[in-house]
């Protein structure tokens, strides 16, 4: 499956899950800020991706939103620490390094949602399919 094919299928999944406009979903769209996703939508999206692509997505693997669990060595004063960033990179080997670098430049926990982009999902699924 080519990257384009994966993107189109991911796009269809997101349009369905989020009632998003077709044109609104691009590779760089952020699920929360651009497409209006809320916490329950992340579970719904994972469920739909599993079904639509026939893959298994372990909880917290694609969207490791609770990776820090309030651990003070990982998050301090609302910012992800150097140790936390290292854990995040290790947990998201499929993420675009440029996007992780961008987050590392201003690692506010509030900005973490910006990592969850359409591009991230496409890259994740590429790896999943390749590993099959």
């Amino acid at each position, binding site marked *: 499956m080519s990257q384009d094919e994966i993107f189109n299928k991911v796009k269809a999944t997101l349009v369905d899950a989020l009632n998003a406009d077709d044109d609104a979903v691009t590779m760089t769209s952020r699920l929360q800020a651009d497409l209006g996703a*809320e916490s*329950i*939508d992340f579970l*719904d999206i994972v*469920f*739909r991706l599993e079904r639509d692509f026939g893959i298994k997505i372990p909880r917290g693997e694609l969207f490791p939103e609770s990776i820090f669990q309030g651990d003070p060595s990982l998050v301090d004063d609302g910012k992800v620490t150097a140790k936390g960033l290292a854990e995040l990179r290790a947990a998201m080997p499929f993420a675009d390094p440029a996007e992780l670098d961008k987050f590392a430049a201003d690692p506010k926990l509030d900005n973490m949602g910006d990592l969850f982009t359409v591009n991230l999902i496409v890259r994740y699924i590429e790896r999943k399919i390749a590993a099959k």
Partner: protein
Amino acid sequence: MMLKDQVALVTGGSRGIGKGIVETLAKNGAKVAFVYRGSEAAAKTLEAEITAAGGIAKAYQGDVAKPDTAKAIVESVVAEWGRLDILVNNAGVIRDKLFLRLDSDDWTTVLDTNINGTFHFCKAVAMQMLGQKYGRIINVSSIAATHVNVGQTNYAASKGAINSFTRALAAELSRKNVNVNGVAPGFIETEMTEAVRNMAGADNLKKMIPARRLGKPDDIAGVVLFLCSPAAAYVTGQVITVDGGLSLGAVSG
């Protein structure tokens, strides 16, 4: 046929209020799966009656208090009918005793069936309903949650938990067009309330009810049907009291 092509699942469906709900949903076009624990003869009779009347119903044996029951039944219903639109958590038991005589078994039996059973079934249907972007969950509570009776600490606790659970779950699922509501019956003529009716005397009970009659399973089923209907699309997180006015506490004049 308001519910044509919809699939419903009702727990505690072979007798009492549950039976009324099963019949009403089937009469309105839904394919209805219902769960019974011990009343096999009643369940098979109900299944046959609905089929004979041109409806579609299927009985499943299972104890809702056991965590694996819900998942197995929900999977089976979805495998057979392809979807699941309506869940009615109706299965409930009573073990009335004064608190000083109530033992932990009386407590856990009631909580396991009434609130844990409701949890297990909600859990089992949630992903299916989110995926469909449509679902109606109706939990059967009781006015005994708010208008308590002596001898029902366990039952009142279980039904109060259902009310809070209903509201909290609605807050999470309604965004995906899965509405969660409750119905709180008053005094309904069923086998479960027979002992109390005999003790108190039906006439004495009626004096406490402004409608001057005990409720029937159909009185509850009608409100369940409303909550499943398009007319109630914007109703979520509510527990609707259906008691002929009993909870008003009015003194008859």
